[in-house]
């Protein structure tokens, strides 16, 4: 029940709605659950609602972990 994807906010609309973009596709979603989100932010989108903000910094940290696993294993 939890299919959700990260998408970038590209425009704010009325009534707590915003347009998000996912490479070549846009969709109107509600920001009612993450009112602090704004243009340029990535949010996790689920059933037409943003559920949470995506931290770009944390994403990079996690990707770094993957690469690091390689170093660890190689060691």
């Amino acid at each position, binding site marked *: *029940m*939890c*299919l*959700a*994807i*990260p998408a*970038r906010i590209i425009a704010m609309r009325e009534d707590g709605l915003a347009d998000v973009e*996912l*490479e070549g596709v846009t969709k109107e979603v*509600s920001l*009612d*659950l*993450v*009112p602090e989100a704004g243009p340029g932010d*990535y949010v*996790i989108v*689920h*059933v*037409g*609602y943003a*559920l*949470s*903000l*995506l*931290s*770009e910094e*944390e*994403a990079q*940290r*996690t*990707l770094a*972990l*993957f*690469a690091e*696993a*390689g170093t*660890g*294993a*190689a060691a």
Partner: protein
Amino acid sequence: MKYIEEFRDPALAKTLARAIAAEVAPGRSYRFMEFCGGHTHAIARYGVEDLLPPAVEMIHGPGCPVCVLPVGRVDVAVALATQHDVILCTYADLMRVPGSKFDSLMKAKARGADIRMIYSVMDALRIAEENPGRQVVFFAIGFETTTPPTALALKQATAKGLRNFSVHCNHVLTPAAMRAILGDGEKVPLDGFVGPAHVSTVIGTQPYEEFTRDYAKPVVIAGFEPLDVMQAVLQLVRQVNDGRAEVENEYSRAVTPEGNTRAIALMDEVFDLRDSFEWRGLGEVPHSALKIADAYADFDAEKRFSVKTEPARENKACECGAILRGEKTPEDCGIFGDPCTPENPLGACMVSSEGACAAHWTYGRFREKKAVPA
């Protein structure tokens, strides 16, 4: 797609595969349950199994709300749509879920019931506004991810005085199900959990502490991309090897310790805990589901419509319960593949592509059964 494709990178997958293989202790096996159907789907669809060493076995948990909805609740949905002249709105996933006597919402629709597949509960509100002469019922299913949107819809309906809208609430709770699987703890052959991705964006990491504390099972919350799952497996292997049982957060890009406090407050306001709720495959699980709070009782379809259904029974041959608890695999079920298939699902795990049996049938049955070191 940014923040998606990076987490599907085949080179990093090889790196992680090598790392896991390297960290696995010789001569022992690791049995991890991914709680969520999202993880099950990622493992099956990307063939993650081929990248894990034979010592690591993934057990598919009950984290698919469509799979765990009991037959009786599906019957209620069908009855609502056919016995009252309502417009029944629901997520498409539910359409083919079998109730009693092979009936389903898809078949009820074919018989003429007005059932609308919606993408978002906002669509249900719009349909109610566009059809003032009809009663519109949103048949709400899902874990803590779909629950906050349902809460928002109930608040909006109240604000708008939308008298022809109501919600039939079947929202269930993740930690309660994990607790049910662990049962009395000791006998459950699980070495740890891959913890929920999007549920955790809402509830945070804190609710999993009880499993590390009370059951000594490590939990690694992970995203739904295949590298997230592999990284979680790596971290779980390390915890097991180290004898640790901690809550770790692999999905830190979206999950915070406290979760979405606004969403949590909304759920608290709009819903109350049910004493008990039936799960397909697990049976009655205490405090595992939500009902609509008294303040919103006017919009509760369970109160607005009375429906008649026959007592429902699960298929006796179905091994779902044992599979969900990690005691058996789909191929251990005598009716897997014949007659139980995704076209003709006879148990919970065959219902959606996120279910253990369906995932194995659809994506994995070409594989010879892997010999698992005992």
